[in-house]
């Protein structure tokens, strides 16, 4: 590849045959590896999505995007609650890397401490590995309390903790009694699951057991809901909140983006849960429904069309003419600002190709944004999602629980006798359903993707290289570990975990930001300079002329020569 791949954009190239691409990707692997990866590279059928081997073990020696269970627990649901003081129990590293490396933006009110700016851990030493670390942990909690006086403390375990058998739950219980504040323990050792996903589940369980339901006083609002699975990367939660407020809907708690411990305590007092990232938080949505009677629906505020659809769905749920009218007004208003930008950018990039490999929901949600501007998704896949996120929740009963998933506790939840107050009566729910409304309705990524598109779970480094070589996408959405690999090949890569330190991209205003961002990445001159002029046109260069010979034509001649040089030897 001497030419940057992006210049070979492809209406002129025959569309690659996905089955052949798959075979090409697998070709180099040892048999055992090929067999396993074959189950994770799937030719899509939106009618009846084929089974994908998601949420299975990562193959040793394969360069993967995935992280660990601890990262999942520290990173989402629990981690971003800004005023819980979190202590990582373990050697210094795990906690260090999780320190401020996810962009969960917060604006705490005056007087409240944002513990996300702190990295606290027990910096375990050999002594504790040999003789146990409970004493040091207990001491660390006492010191943290004495220094910071937090409302609540969470303890997170890393790999060595489980192995040496420290009982962090007993420590938490004792400390809770001693200090009189909520002290919670999370057994999220890195090896507990096959990816971050296990950590999400553990965080869901802990937050549900220990925080949700501690404060029964609801926020006063006519329409009151939570947004679940939204982490306020780059300010997304703020965009969503602002939009909903415009419509007259109050968000009690965003789990977990710019959210306080106190907000989470009363998150069970709402009428509706809207689930953004299904993968990371469907457990809490389910448990809140069972225990408190709060129905949940899938929402998606990524993409203009998706946002409008979501607003209408929420309005329909609340079943109020006033709200419905207001929602239509807001959509109309927002679209007035959005349309011209979208049209302008769409005109430039219609038909260009994107591929998305990230997370547990974004590889799906961001397809909507690219489609908004007429781009095509040539391939997509998640990093740590499960089959239901690909194929839809309808496959849940058929998912085999393997040894790794069995590791993670399934909380047994029953209706709370005093507090189970369904927002809607069974009749109302049935009526809504009869009218085409669906609850718990995540249909997954595959139904929205074209037939035969390659869906690749936990894409490996090698497969990514092949994909770029063959499909030559114009842009790829991925994460920090891939970004510069991809860009070295001359293909711009948008980090969809950190947003490359920009954003927000949610709701209408966020969509406009994203269109502009894609436009910037696809039009920047950087990639055009890759080939130096002497390689493009070896013989063309600035001529040497005697100044005296230039005469009257000097000025013109000079300008022409410079133009020529600037254009890499070709006449501009």
């Amino acid at each position: 590849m001497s030419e940057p791949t992006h210049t070979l954009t492809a209406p002129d190239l025959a569309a690659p045959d996905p089955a052949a691409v798959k075979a090409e990707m697998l070709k180099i692997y040892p048999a055992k590896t090929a067999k396993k990866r074959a189950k994770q590279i799937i030719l899509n059928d939106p009618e009846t999505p084929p089974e994908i081997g998601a949420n299975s073990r990562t193959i040793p020696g394969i360069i993967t995007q995935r992280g660990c269970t601890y990262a999942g627990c520290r990173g989402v649901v629990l981690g971003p609650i800004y005023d819980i003081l979190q202590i990582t129990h373990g050697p210094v590293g795990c906690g260090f890397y999780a320190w401020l490396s996810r962009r969960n933006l917060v604006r705490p009110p005056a007087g409240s401490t944002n513990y996300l700016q702190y990295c606290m851990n027990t910096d375990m030493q050999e002594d504790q590995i040999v003789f146990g670390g409970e004493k040091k942990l207990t001491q660390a909690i006492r010191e943290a309390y004495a220094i910071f006086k937090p409302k609540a403390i969470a303890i997170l375990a890393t790999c060595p903790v489980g192995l040496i058998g420290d009982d962090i739950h007993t420590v938490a219980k004792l400390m809770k009694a001693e200090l009189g504040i909520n002290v919670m323990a999370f057994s999220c050792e890195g090896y507990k699951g096959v990816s971050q996903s296990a950590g999400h589940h553990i965080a869901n369980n802990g937050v549900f057991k220990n925080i949700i339901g501690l404060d029964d006083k609801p926020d006063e609002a006519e329409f009151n809901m939570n947004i679940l699975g939204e982490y306020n990367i780059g300010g997304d939660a703020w965009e969503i909140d602002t939009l909903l407020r415009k419509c007259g809907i109050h968000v009690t708690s965003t789990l977990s983006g710019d959210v306080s411990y106190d907000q989470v305590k009363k998150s069970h007092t709402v009428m509706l849960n809207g689930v953004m990232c299904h993968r990371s938080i469907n457990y809490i949505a389910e448990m809140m429904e069972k225990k408190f009677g709060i129905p949940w629906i899938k929402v998606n505020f990524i993409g203009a069309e998706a946002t409008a659809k979501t607003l209408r769905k929420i309005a329909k749920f609340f079943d109020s003419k006033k709200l419905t009218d207001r929602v239509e007004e807001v959509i109309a208003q927002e679209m007035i600002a959005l349309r011209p930008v979208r049209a302008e950018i769409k005109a430039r990039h219609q038909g260009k190709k994107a591929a998305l490999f990230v997370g547990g929901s974004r590889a799906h949600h961001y397809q909507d944004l690219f489609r908004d501007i007429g781009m095509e998704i040539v391939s997509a896949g998640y990093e740590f999602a499960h089959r239901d996120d690909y194929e839809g929740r309808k496959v849940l009963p058929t998912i085999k629980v393997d040894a790794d998933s069995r590791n993670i506790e399934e909380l047994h939840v029953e209706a709370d006798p005093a507090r189970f107050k369904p927002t809607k009566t069974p009749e109302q729910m049935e009526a809504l359903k009869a009218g085409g409304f669906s609850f718990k309705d995540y249909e997954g990524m595959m139904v929205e993707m074209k037939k035969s598109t390659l869906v690749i779970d936990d894409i490996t480094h090698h497969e990514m290289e092949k994909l770029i070589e063959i499909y030559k996408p114009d842009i790829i959405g991925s994460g920090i570990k891939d970004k510069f690999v991809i860009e070295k090949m001359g293909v711009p890569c948008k980090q969809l975990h950190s947003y490359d330190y920009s954003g927000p991209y949610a709701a209408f205003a966020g969509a406009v930001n994203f269109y502009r961002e894609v436009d910037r990445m696809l039009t920047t001159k950087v990639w055009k300079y890759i080939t130096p002029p002497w390689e493009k046109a070896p013989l063309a260069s600035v001529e040497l002329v005697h100044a005296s010979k230039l005469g009257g034509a000097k000025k013109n001649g000079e300008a022409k020569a410079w133009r020529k040089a600037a254009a890499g030897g070709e006449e501009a």
Partner: protein
Amino acid sequence: MLDGTTAEIKPREALRINPAKTCQPIGAMYAALGIHGCMPHSHGSQGCCAYHRSHLTRHFKEPVVATSSSFTEGASVFGGLANMTQALSNIFTIYDPKIVAVHTTCLSEVIGDDIPMMIKKATEEGIIPAGKVVIHANTPSFVGSHVTGFASMVTAMVKYLSESSGKTEAQLKDEPQLNIIPGYIDPADMRELKRIIKEMGVKTVLFPDTSGVLDLPQDGRYRMFPSGGATIEQIKSAGDSVGTIALGHFASHPAAEKLDEKCNVPCALLELPYGLTNTDRFIHALRNHGGVDVPGTLGEERGRLLDAMGDMHQYFHGKRVAIAGDPDHVIALTQFLVELDMKPAYVITGSSGNHFEQRVTEILKDQAPEAIVKQNSDLFALHQWIKNQPVDLLIGNTYCKYIAHVEKIPFVRFGFPVLDRMGHRYFPGVGYMGALRLMEKINDALLDHKDRECPEETFELIQ
């Protein structure tokens, strides 16, 4: 910002807050990337490897590839042999590196996996193809820090690769070669060391060498194993060198000592060449042990640095400075600040090691005997001291920026990691030219701060 940090200092023994160090494997991974054609391999759960790759990538903004044994609970209980074997088979089949450098993680250390046995077994079973090499370093993170991990991997290079070929002294003196062990410095620094060495005309082997690996040009191509890095042959030949110049007590001296022990190569144990006198010592050592003269060009560089120090030292003189970072870096930088007439007030490292406190105290004994010097410290402690008695300048990695912001202190980024600025990726901090750059950064930070904060009547056009 950092609203929970108060001036009142309460006793703290067990709780680490805002560390000034991280864990061993990231250093080992970085060192391994300084071998040409090397795949670093993390033996443990994949989370560590993901964290280390991500963080190195954020610092270098370059592809950082490494593999993991991807333990799940089974491996954690029964040992990681099967995972290692499968990993090696995949790595050599798919990525085809020349060498794999294995480091452990807390997990594999706690369960006590025997890596040499695993490598031996993989060799016997033919999983490691003929001509390919696998080396290893133990890097438990409940001991030491990322600097220890770096040092251990460099030492592993010596243990596994360096050899004395049995050449006679006379043969070796014929074309004398020096080893340079550069320490935990950036690719731009390694590149600068090589430039200086070339100017001097000394034949050297520099290892590890991440220049040409983690500072790649954009040419539209991705190469998993780029042209840079010390080759296996070079590291092998280190055993035949006439001497080793090792830069940094913590990151480099252990490997130099190992090389002496194994191949009888004597070593000069220096500090990192940050600042004037440390660079002087490095060049002096190259001159004497390489048998060359110092070229005029380097003399001129030195002269320009000294000239700038003379021109600008009024802005440095007596300024109180807080420094946080890795021990070798901080020791050398403290020396440079003393050369600039500054007054280091708090000098900390997150790593442990008495040598740090002894050496810094010695450097400061005339100029700033009252300075607080601490190993095994953290940024929270540093911040509290600053709250009690402020400083004029803070120097440290990116994590320090929160302290600088909230306390409104001029701030210079230095060390590892720098996650929010670009200069370290391209411009060296070592050598005379590097010292000029550091000095410029300090000067800019101080004067920009003055320009921003001073009353109008002292806002000056010329400084």
